């Protein structure tokens, strides 16, 4: 698992959002990103609750209500494939099959090294460039087999310049 930057990362993130309980979703987004595994662990949730002076049940209610949050590790690079109707009938299943070929895992699974995970998502508003997928905050559209390999390799080899041209700018 990716080492998290510093022991105080939770309090740093909460402070960045002015200890404002109204910013809970933004805090959870940032914690999840900093986790390196796309999730929020229980001790972190407790710490957030303490810092915001809000009950832990409230933090968990929010954490488990929204589908972009997870209480379990989901992989460092989480590949989210749209499963909504416009994409499902526009080759998103092929995209999923290619991802499976590349990574040897299916939806809801993580590679043994914890580097990659695959998940379904509802519509990400990229129907005009499907088949598309989302990694982090970026959507990659109009993908084919070779572009997908290029994309996955860019993460394997830590070469962002290979994936930048594939980011959807529409």
């Amino acid at each position: 698992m990716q080492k998290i930057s510093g022991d105080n990362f939770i309090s740093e993130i909460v402070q960045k959002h002015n200890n404002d309980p109204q910013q809970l979703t933004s805090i959870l987004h940032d914690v999840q990103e900093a986790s390196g595994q796309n999730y929020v662990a229980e001790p972190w949730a407790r710490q957030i609750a303490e810092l915001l002076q809000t009950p832990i049940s409230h933090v968990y209610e929010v954490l488990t209500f929204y589908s972009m949050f997870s209480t379990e590790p989901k992989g460092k690079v989480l590949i989210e494939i749209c499963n909504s109707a416009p994409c499902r009938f526009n080759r998103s299943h092929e995209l999923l099959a290619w991802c499976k070929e590349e990574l040897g895992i299916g939806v809801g699974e993580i590679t043994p090294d914890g580097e990659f995970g695959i998940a379904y998502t509802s519509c990400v508003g990229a129907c005009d460039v499907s088949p598309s997928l989302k990694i982090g905050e970026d959507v990659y559209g109009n993908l084919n087999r070779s572009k997908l390999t290029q994309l996955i390799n860019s993460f394997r080899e830590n070469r962002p310049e290979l994936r930048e041209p594939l980011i959807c700018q529409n």
Partner: protein
Amino acid sequence: MSKLINLISMGAGEVAPEDIKAYQQIGGFEALKKAMSMSPAQIVEEVKAAKLLGRGGAAFPLGIKWEHLLHIEGEPKYIVCNADEGEPGTFKDRFVLRQVPLRLFEGIAIAGYVFNSPKAYIYLRGEYRDLKEKLLSIIDKAKSAGFLGKNILGSNYSLEIEIISGAGAYICGENSALLNSTEGKVGRPRIKPPHLAEVGLFQMPTLVNNVESLAAIPEILLLGGQRYLELGHPDSGGSKLISLAGHCLQRGIYEIPLGRLTLRDIIFDPELGGGIADGKKLKFFHLGGQSGAIGHPDQLDTVYSYTDLRAAGLSVGSGAVVVMDESVSILEYLKAVNEFFIHESCGKCVPCREGNRQIHKILDRLLIPGAATRTDLATLRRLIDTMTAASFCGLGQTAAVAISTAWKHFKSEFEANVVDGPEHYKLAVG
């Protein structure tokens, strides 16, 4: 002559989204200047005359909403921009946020001035977080230029805009759920009344408008409500952003005048959809989002306006036009729609939470030869009626619209695998 129109999309792709000077050169912030020389009541009159119907999907007349809020007492009044675009097949708010954000901010500033709001929130769906930093930096630029922030245009009026991130919940597009989420709570809908105009964000009077609605305001003020109305349909003025997706050749965002084009123009015209890809035939189209109606090729000559579509049993909704070719099974498609609603139901009320799940079981059986009986069809009908009548909010009330409309058009596919059950179960359906 072009079939398209450039009101909201003016400058998109030509003017850099963050370039305030360039935006001013195409008339940017002139509407705000004009607005601030008018009284709030005069502005509301123009919006009413324009007959702008809410562009998020519910199609509530914007002018009526504004007039209502204007007469409500209590301060502060908040402005909330609904940028939780979650209807699959819809990406027009992303277009506005990415291409012409200054027009949206100008619309928000005008709304803020009308209601003397100190603060506006943009509720940005979690899937669009990549836009947040960019939007914040553009807000800062607009502040430095005097169009937002303290003492707008040298007046006594000040407005701060904050961006709140969603986290992947379709239900938050429902305005009361959106306000709960903006307050940092889970996004479950509130019981109404009280109306959000009276008891909204932090219990204060609140205006909740869609991105596209707010972005339409500057042009309404520049042209005047009457002229804006004349550009569209007599019942619903101006333009609509269409998100064209699925199996048409030219997917994308198109701004069209309301009441001027038919569905055939939208899907087949070389300037718009350009027809069906791979030489296939059109099987059906799904309008207004997953909660909208499914249309049949026989309806292609229907004019795209709120009135004409409603008369044909269809709706504008979010402006989504999802085109599906002949290779798609209608039942498989409906299963995808249904699975979306199972996933997105907030779980608060039984008809929506359970209804969608039970519908899924029946759709599954309808796909297997001999697995479904006529009883299943009768149960499906009952479930649809119950959900529509008894769900707590719009999500459950509209979750089965696609199924019931498709059922009319593709009756034979619904019944293809059905076997007759015992005599006493033979209920009259369809």
